[in-house]
C-alpha cells in the first residue's frame, strides 16, 4: 500500500510571467484513489501534465515509477484520458483502440474494452459521428487499454447521463479494488466524494489541503445552514455565502451560534435547514478565502 508510484518534489511551473504550479510536493501511493480539486485555472491540469510527461517542471522534480515521466518505461504503466473533443474525427472507434493498443506490450483485448464501456456496437463508427456521451466513454476506455497500474482521469464523466456516470464509477471502483491507482480530477464534487479516499485541493498553484476525504469533510468542521432570506446580514461566523436560486447557503463552523445570531438579527428568514458539511462546503471554504472579498457580498468578518 505504501509503495509510491509517482512523486512530485518542490515542483514549480511557470509560463512566462504566470506561475501555474507553485512549489508543490505530492506523493501518489499505490492503490489509492486520489481526487484533485481546484477552481478553473488553479493549476490542476498543469500538475497532471507534469506527471504524465507533457510538461517539464520549471523547478523541482517529478518521478513516475522512479523514472522521468518522459521515459517510455514509466509511461507504459500509466493510462491517460484524452479530452474528448480531440479525437480524430475520421477514424473509427475500433481503429482508435488498435492505435492505442499498439503502444503496450499486453493490452486488454479489444472486445473486452469495448464491451466494458458499452462501445461494442460502435466499433465501426467514425469518432466524429459519436454523441458526447459515447465520445466520453471512448476517451475513458482508452486510459485502460494498456492494463495500467496508474490512471489519470481528467473530468471522466463530463457529459455523461446519470446512468453512464454510475456505470463508470462502478468501473473505477472495480479497477481500484483490483489494485489499480487512480488520479481523478472533476468539477463534480459529488464524484470525488463518492470515489476518492484522499483529496488534494489546489488553489493558485499551491496545495491548500491534502487529507482523506472523510477527515477533510469532518475536520473542516463546517456546517451548511440553508435559508430563504431577502438579504444576508453581516454576521460573524459565516465562512462563505452561496446563492442557489432564492435559497442561500451559509457555510459556518458553528451552526447553532449562527442560527441564534440569525434570529437575533431580526431578518425575516424561512425554510431553515442545517446539514453537516460536505466536501463541497470544505472545498468552497478552502478556495474562497483568498477571493472572498470578490465572491461574497456579505457575511465575512473584516
Amino acid at each position, binding site marked *: 500500500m505504501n509503495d509510491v508510484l509517482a512523486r512530485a518534489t518542490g515542483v514549480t511551473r511557470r509560463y512566462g510571467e504566470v506561475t*501555474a504550479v507553485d512549489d508543490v510536493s505530492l506523493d501518489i501511493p499505490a492503490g489509492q484513489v486520489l481526487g484533485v480539486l481546484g477552481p478553473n485555472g488553479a493549476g490542476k491540469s498543469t500538475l497532471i*501534465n507534469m506527471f504524465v510527461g507533457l510538461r517539464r517542471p520549471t523547478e523541482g522534480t517529478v518521478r513516475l515509477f522512479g523514472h522521468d515521466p518522459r521515459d517510455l518505461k514509466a509511461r507504459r504503466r500509466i493510462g491517460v484520458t484524452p479530452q474528448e473533443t*480531440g479525437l*480524430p474525427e475520421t477514424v473509427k472507434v475500433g*481503429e482508435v483502440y488498435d*492505435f492505442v493498443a499498439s503502444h503496450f506490450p499486453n493490452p486488454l483485448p479489444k472486445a473486452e474494452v469495448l464491451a466494458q464501456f458499452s462501445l461494442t456496437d460502435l466499433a465501426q463508427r467514425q469518432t466524429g459521428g459519436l454523441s458526447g456521451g459515447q465520445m466520453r466513454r471512448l476517451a475513458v476506455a482508452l486510459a485502460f487499454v494498456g492494463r495500467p497500474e496508474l490512471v489519470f482521469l481528467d473530468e471522466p464523466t463530463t457529459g455523461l447521463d446519470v446512468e453512464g456516470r454510475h456505470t463508470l464509477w462502478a468501473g473505477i471502483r472495480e479497477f481500484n479494488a483490483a489494485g489499480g491507482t487512480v488520479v481523478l480530477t472533476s468539477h463534480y464534487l459529488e464524484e470525488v466524494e463518492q470515489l476518492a479516499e484522499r483529496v488534494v485541493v489546489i488553489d493558485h498553484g499551491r496545495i491548500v489541503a491534502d487529507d482523506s476525504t472523510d477527515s477533510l469533510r469532518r475536520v473542516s468542521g463546517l456546517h451548511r445552514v440553508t435559508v430563504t432570506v431577502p438579504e444576508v446580514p453581516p454576521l460573524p461566523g459565516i465562512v462563505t455565502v452561496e446563492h442557489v436560486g432564492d435559497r442561500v447557503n451559509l457555510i459556518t463552523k458553528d451552526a447553532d451560534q449562527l442560527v441564534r445570531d440569525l434570529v437575533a438579527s431580526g431578518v425575516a428568514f424561512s425554510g431553515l435547514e442545517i446539514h453537516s458539511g460536505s466536501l463541497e462546503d470544505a472545498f468552497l471554504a478552502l478556495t474562497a478565502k483568498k477571493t472572498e472579498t470578490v465572491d461574497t457580498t456579505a457575511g465575512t468578518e473584516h
Partner: protein
Amino acid sequence: MKSILVYSKFEVLQAIRIPMVYVALLFMPTVGMILFVVPAVGDDPKTAALATASMCLFAVLTICSAQYGMAIAIGRVRPWGGYVRTLPGGPVPRIVSMLVLSAVLTVFACIPLVAVGAIATKATATPGGMLLGLFALLLAVVPFGLFMTAVGYSVNPLAIGPITSIAPVVLAFFGGFFTAPNEATGFMAHVAQFLPTRGPAELVWTALGGFTPSPISMVMFVVWIGVFAFWAYRAYRNDEGKRFA
C-alpha cells in the same frame, strides 16, 4: 518498426477519409494543368515534361501546406496531439508517419498529372528519369514540410487557412513553376534562385534530364533547410508553454 507501421496507417486513415483531400490533391492540380499548362507548353517534349514536373512539385507544396501547416495549427487547439504524447511511443514514429503520409499523397497526386502530361502533351521521360524525379519530389518534402511546420506552430490557428492556401501559389509562382525552366528572364531569373521553392524545382527538373541546376539554387536549398529547421524548432519550443496552460 511495428509502431511506425501503426502510426503511418493511422495517419493515412485519417487523411483518406476526408473528401476534400481528393479535391485538393487530384482535382485541383489536374484541372490547373489542363487549363493552364497543356495549352501553353507547345510542341517541345522536354518543356512539356518539365512543366508536368513543376505541377507535381506544386502539388507537393500544397500537400505540405495542408498536412503540416494546416494540420499542426489545428492540432494545437485540439488535445489529441497531447494525448498521443502521453502514450509510450516517442517522437520517431510520429515524425516518420507524417513523412510516410506525405510520400503516399505525393504519389497519389502525381498519377493524374503524369497521365495528363503523357496523354495531352508531347512530354516524354525515361522510367529512370521519372523514378529520379519522384525521389526529388520526396526530397522536396523536407524543406516544405519544415517550413510549414514552422508556420503551423507560429501562426494563429484562425489565420492558417488563408496562409496555407496563398503561400504555395506565391512561392510556386516566384520559384518559376509556371514558366518554362530554361526561358526565365529578368526578375525571375535573378530572384527565383534565392527562393526556397527554386532549389527543389531545379532538382526535380535535373532528375528528369535536360536541365542544369544553378550553384546558387543548390546552396540556397541547403541554407533554407537549415533556416526552416531552426525556425520550426523555435516555433515548436515557444508554442509549448501556451497550448493547454
